[in-house]
């Protein structure tokens, strides 16, 4: 939008006459800024300023017994050598590696199936698959906490009825899978909708052509539909990567009932939260947040670089 308002008058000005192009474009530039201003103001106040302030905070260190002293990048050195932070980063990295492919495969499969169906059931199914995303993450986590509970949860009652050993999803060995399950449940529907929307944008003539050439449903799905929604898949992957590296809500909610499987430094974001609000160490927490931001940025950059190269390779 803003792009258009900036460009179009400029073009008009240049075609009208060469007499006062500079003044005209200057004024139109000013009008452009006027359009941008409401957004820019909010952007500056709620994004740029807090970022700068947090960065400023991260350059100091404060101890309970010392005052606040300028410490330069010491907090960052500390963060990247802090086993608690590094373990947390390792956890979310591993979590992403398992979760994201699983989530994407699942949402892609559901989207393809729902795209192929034309019955009334398809609309209902679409809504049902999407529903978990409409449930706030906190409520969803509480619900799963109940389902996972060894005393009240149906899971343990089922395993008990089957006569097998009690299944404890929240035990240290199973917590990884338990969280993968919650996040997949919560987000797969949302990703499904994105892919589904992209599929709706595909020209049906392509399918017809493919069928005339003798392609079956599988081949249409794999050779035509999937490549055509690949840009939507990239978007999903970036969203999922960013979200997962910042994993916070679900483990934070489940922590009180996880019987020690989730410690305060379970994920980098939880660790930053604990440092800030339990240990009063806002400076180190700011540094941890920026350190995590750097990790996220690098991860996304690497991925985008790789996927761009790959797609270029395809088109050639």
């Amino acid at each position, binding site marked *: 939008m803003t792009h258009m308002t900036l460009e179009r008058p400029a073009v008009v000005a240049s075609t009208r006459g060469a007499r006062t192009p500079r003044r005209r474009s200057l004024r139109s530039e000013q009008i452009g800024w006027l359009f941008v201003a409401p957004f820019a103001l909010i952007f500056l106040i*709620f*994004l740029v300023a*807090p*970022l700068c*302030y*947090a960065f*400023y*905070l991260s350059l*100091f260190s*404060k*101890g*309970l*017994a*010392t*005052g*606040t002293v300028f410490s330069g990048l010491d907090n960052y050195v500390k963060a990247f050598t802090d086993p608690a932070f590094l373990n947390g980063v390792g956890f979310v990295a591993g979590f992403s590696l398992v979760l994201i492919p699983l989530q994407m495969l699942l949402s892609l499969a559901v989207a393809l199936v729902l795209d192929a169906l034309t019955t009334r059931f398809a609309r209902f199914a679409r809504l049902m698959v999407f529903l978990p995303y409409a449930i706030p993450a906190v409520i969803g986590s509480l619900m799963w906490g109940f389902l996972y*509970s*060894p*005393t*009240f949860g149906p899971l343990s009652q089922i395993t008990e009825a089957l006569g097998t050993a009690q299944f404890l999803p929240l035990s*240290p060995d199973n917590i990884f899978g338990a969280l993968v399950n919650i996040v997949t449940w919560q987000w797969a529907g949302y990703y499904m909708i994105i892919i589904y929307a992209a599929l709706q944008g595909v020209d049906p003539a392509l399918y017809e052509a493919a069928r005339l050439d003798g392609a079956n449903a599988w081949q249409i799905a794999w050779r035509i539909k999937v490549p055509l929604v690949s*840009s939507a898949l*990239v*978007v999903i992957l*970036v*969203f999922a990567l*960013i979200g997962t*590296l*910042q994993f*916070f809500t679900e483990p934070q909610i489940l922590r*009180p*009932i996880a*019987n*020690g499987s989730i*410690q*305060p430094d379970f994920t980098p*974001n939880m660790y*930053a*939260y*604990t440092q*800030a*609000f*339990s*240990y*009063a160490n*806002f*400076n180190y*927490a*700011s540094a941890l*947040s*920026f350190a*995590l*931001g750097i990790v*996220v*940025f690098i991860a*996304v950059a690497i991925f*985008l670089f790789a996927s761009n190269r790959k797609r270029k390779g395809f088109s050639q």
Partner: protein
Amino acid sequence: MRSRIIAPAAVATALIATLVGCTPGGGAAGGGTGGATGSQVNPTVTAADCTNEIKKADVPLVSVWAWYPNIATVVDNFNEGHDDVQVCWNNVGQGGEEYDKVQTAISAGKGLPDVVMLEADHISAYAIQNALVNLGDYGVDAIRSSFSDGAWKDVSQGDSIFGVPVDGGPMALIYRTDVFDKYGVTAPKTWDDFRTAAEKVKAAGGPLFGDLGANVPAVMMALQIQKGAQPFQVDAADPKKLTIKLNDSNSKDVLDFWAGLVKDGLVGTQDQFTTDYIAGFINGDYGTYTSAAWAPGYLTGAGVGEGASEGKFQVAELPQWNTSSPVAVNWGGSAFSVTTQAHDYALASKVAQELYADDASLEDGWKNQVIFPLNQKVLTSDAFIDNKSEFFSGQQANKEVYVPAANDYKGFVYPPIIVYYYAQLQEVLTQVNAGTLSGSDAADQLQKTVVDYAKGQGFTVSE
């Protein structure tokens, strides 16, 4: 093309979201704004800010944060009895939730109420940040005789008094009479007896005898102190000098004792204050509950002692290591502190001293088992001492167990780094419960982590 536009925006969004956790309360980069001396001007609290209804207009308000279950009644009692000051009360969360807000407000340099309810173990953490007012300067001596020396010690640092005690948690052993009768064991007098009884119950196919909840580190600290450990000492003249001894032989003995019970399957490893634990407790999955005087009230509120578990509980003195020199210990309990952000220290101090100190409120508290009061007025009254506890099927629990334990309590020294210490103790206890760490190793590991942290915070540490 589309993804290329979205991606940088998404990255930017990610950065903000990452930072949301730390920016809003970010406050005091200047450090210890709460430490400014003298009273600061608070934006005056108005009646609209209070959870309770303020019935007397044109009287100065004092804001209070507290979470006692009957605090609404207590506040109304106070306000009815005072024409010179009215309490404006809010509940901002229980325990940890409130402390996170208190800590944030201290760092921000604003946002604290005038008077805040704190558990005794958290007082020194805020005192060292100059967030609490020394009540010794505001006439607290007048009520000195209302509380025992142990109670005062818990809220003091050196000669400075940072809180007015309200309730305490003298520890004792609650046990299930049905389990004890069925397996023929009696209330253990010593910890060795405790283990013997646990083995006997287990050998006969009985339930777990107790529970080592990793999320109640304060219990472990108290049990270690009971055997003679002295985890922390704070230099009275300079609170920045700490002595930390978390891995002496007494500390290790107690950790090894409980680790051994866990290893042999004699006690459970369930976190406490959870529905799973309470459900198990109602079910009779645990023979005993190592707890404090407020436990009957808490358990009743959680539904224990009704239905199938009605009339199944008794309480005995906490087992001892050496019966010839018994040691009483404490878990929990709280006080009212005045913050340095209060707009009128003298008035706030008056509220801290008189809130929850009138007869009606105290009676409401102990009769409903909401608190175990530390006020000597109550502790020495016949009605309190002779009371027959409904939860314990008519046992005179106060007379037999809790009042003697409260009177024998000598007070603990709590370090300013208590939050960190508890978090680390909880972490090693989790590992002890998982069987991946021995009790002694847990003590050694804890000592190292906590000492490193204390040094990093600028304390001078002796080991």
